[in-house]
């Protein structure tokens, strides 16, 4: 399990990050200036229309892409590339197809050169955490989408990642499986207290999962709203309070999809 440490240093600190891509002869400004601090253990959802740069921001935090300017620090340590302190969960799973469920989950511990028995034990523990004991020796192509995503989540948790970066992880799943995985993710979060940064374009999903929702606006990508959600958990999606939050998020989101009107400042 990741360490549970409370400290004044934010788990994720983003300072002055911008990103420009070269496109043909010109340049596209994908991200304007982003400043952001996420506390340890927070569940943060990042919502925005497609193309607003939310995935780019996530990929910069993951270390897959370098920001044009600015820097990102995890638990006070500036990042220099992909690292095992952050775990990315991709929409298309990115499991290693030649490894069984257990081998996929044990991949991180194996890279740390832990003794074989210890790798086995960690893999078994996380296979159990996501309820895949019966499928432990299957290959990814023998799994459903929901099971694949459970493996992907277990894989980063087994690697002791203190920060989970999730890029529309449930976007490709059917509604029932998605609901179930949302519930399971909340259980896992409650149990491990990892910090989660979760990209989605679903207002409903953000309202259900997050402590805090960041609304992004496009052209260039900026954080246009920062909303705390303090509904009690487990959340009742049919309650008037939940609906109010959902309506509020939807209103803020659509106001930013239309050409920028009332831009709120980031606190």
């Amino acid at each position, binding site marked *: 399990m990741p360490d549970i440490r409370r400290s004044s240093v934010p788990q994720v600190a983003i300072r002055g990050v911008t990103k420009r891509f070269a496109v043909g002869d010109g340049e596209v400004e994908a991200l304007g200036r982003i400043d952001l601090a996420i506390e340890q253990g927070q569940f943060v959802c990042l919502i925005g229309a497609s193309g607003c740069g939310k995935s780019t921001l996530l990929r910069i935090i*993951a*270390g*897959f892409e370098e920001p044009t300017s600015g820097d990102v620090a995890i638990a006070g340590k500036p990042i220099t*590339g*992909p*690292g*095992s302190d*952050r*775990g*990315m969960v*991709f929409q*298309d799973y*990115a*499991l*290693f*197809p*030649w*490894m069984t469920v257990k081998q996929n989950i044990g*991949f*991180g511990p194996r*890279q*740390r050169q832990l003794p074989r028995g210890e790798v086995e034990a960690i893999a078994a523990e996380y296979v*159990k*955490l*996501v*309820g895949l*004991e*019966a*499928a432990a020796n299957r*290959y*990814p*192509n*023998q*799994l*459903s*989408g*929901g*099971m694949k995503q459970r493996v992907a989540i277990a*894989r*980063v948790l087994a*690697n002791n990642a203190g920060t989970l970066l999730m890029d529309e992880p449930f976007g490709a799943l059917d509604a*029932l*499986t998605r609901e*179930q995985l949302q*519930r*399971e993710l909340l*259980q896992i979060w409650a*149990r491990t207290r990892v910090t989660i940064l979760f990209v989605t374009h679903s207002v409903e999903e953000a309202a259900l999962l997050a402590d805090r929702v960041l609304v992004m606006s496009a052209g260039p990508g900026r954080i246009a709203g920062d909303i705390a959600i303090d509904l009690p958990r487990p959340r009742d999606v049919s309650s008037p309070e939940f609906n109010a939050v959902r309506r509020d998020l939807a209103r803020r989101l659509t106001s930013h999809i239309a050409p920028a009107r009332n831009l709120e400042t980031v606190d």
Partner: protein
Amino acid sequence: MSEQVTALPDATSQAAPDVPSAARRRGRARETIRAVALGAGFPLVLILLWDRAVAMTGTRLVPSPHAVAVMMYDFAFGGIYDDAFSATIFTHIWKSMTRVYGGFFLAALIAIPLGLMIGRVKFLRQLLDPTVNVLRPIPVTAWLPLSMIFFGLGPNAAIFLVFLGAFYPILLNTIFGVRSVDVRLFEAAAMLGCKGSAMFREVVFPASLPSIFNGLRIAHGFAWILIVVGEMTGVPTGLGSVIMDGRTLSRTDLVVTGMIVIGVCGFITDRIIVAIGNRVLQWSPQHHA
């Protein structure tokens, strides 16, 4: 916790592979019999046509199937002609195999690591790709004179020619395999703490393995094709040299016998490679041949 998780299984998690019923097993057996009957029946028809054609034209230049069968028996067990070729089949097969697999494994040993690196490292790709593509269209037979100068008369020249023929299919398929790996897999491995040579060992190589196996299979076929050319370089034993001797002696029954033995050896060893591939690549659904 896990109880809660498993309390609501999604329908697909129950999809265990179902046990084949007796009826389905019978159906599959019938299918196998059918495949064998068709696959073996066609060459039998060809042999029949060959026999009729030789009989009707009365040619003495092409041997009849019967003459080849007699030669084959003598080649394998002796006791008919009792000449230099009687009962020598295994010597020739063994010699040819040492050259086929000498060249083939040498090619695999060099082409796979090289292909992995060319596929992954841009500098090497820019450095080597044009050269590879200039050398590749040169027919292996064109190397024959040079290979005899480099390696002299003997088995090494044969191994070199087989190596050349097997090298490019393995190299190109390996490069293609690396280039077509989903970039996300490299990202996923990097974020899990995999780097440097471990990345090659743990991700690049296994991810490219389906394509590498395709290359190995094609190269293995070329290796058997090239054995005749390779053994033209003046080696006394080997299936290729048997065919060359048959040509010199105008013994077409010997030539055809050598041809058939090469074909059968190539077929059986190809089946073995496919079986190994299916075993190693059981994770890859598109690879079962």
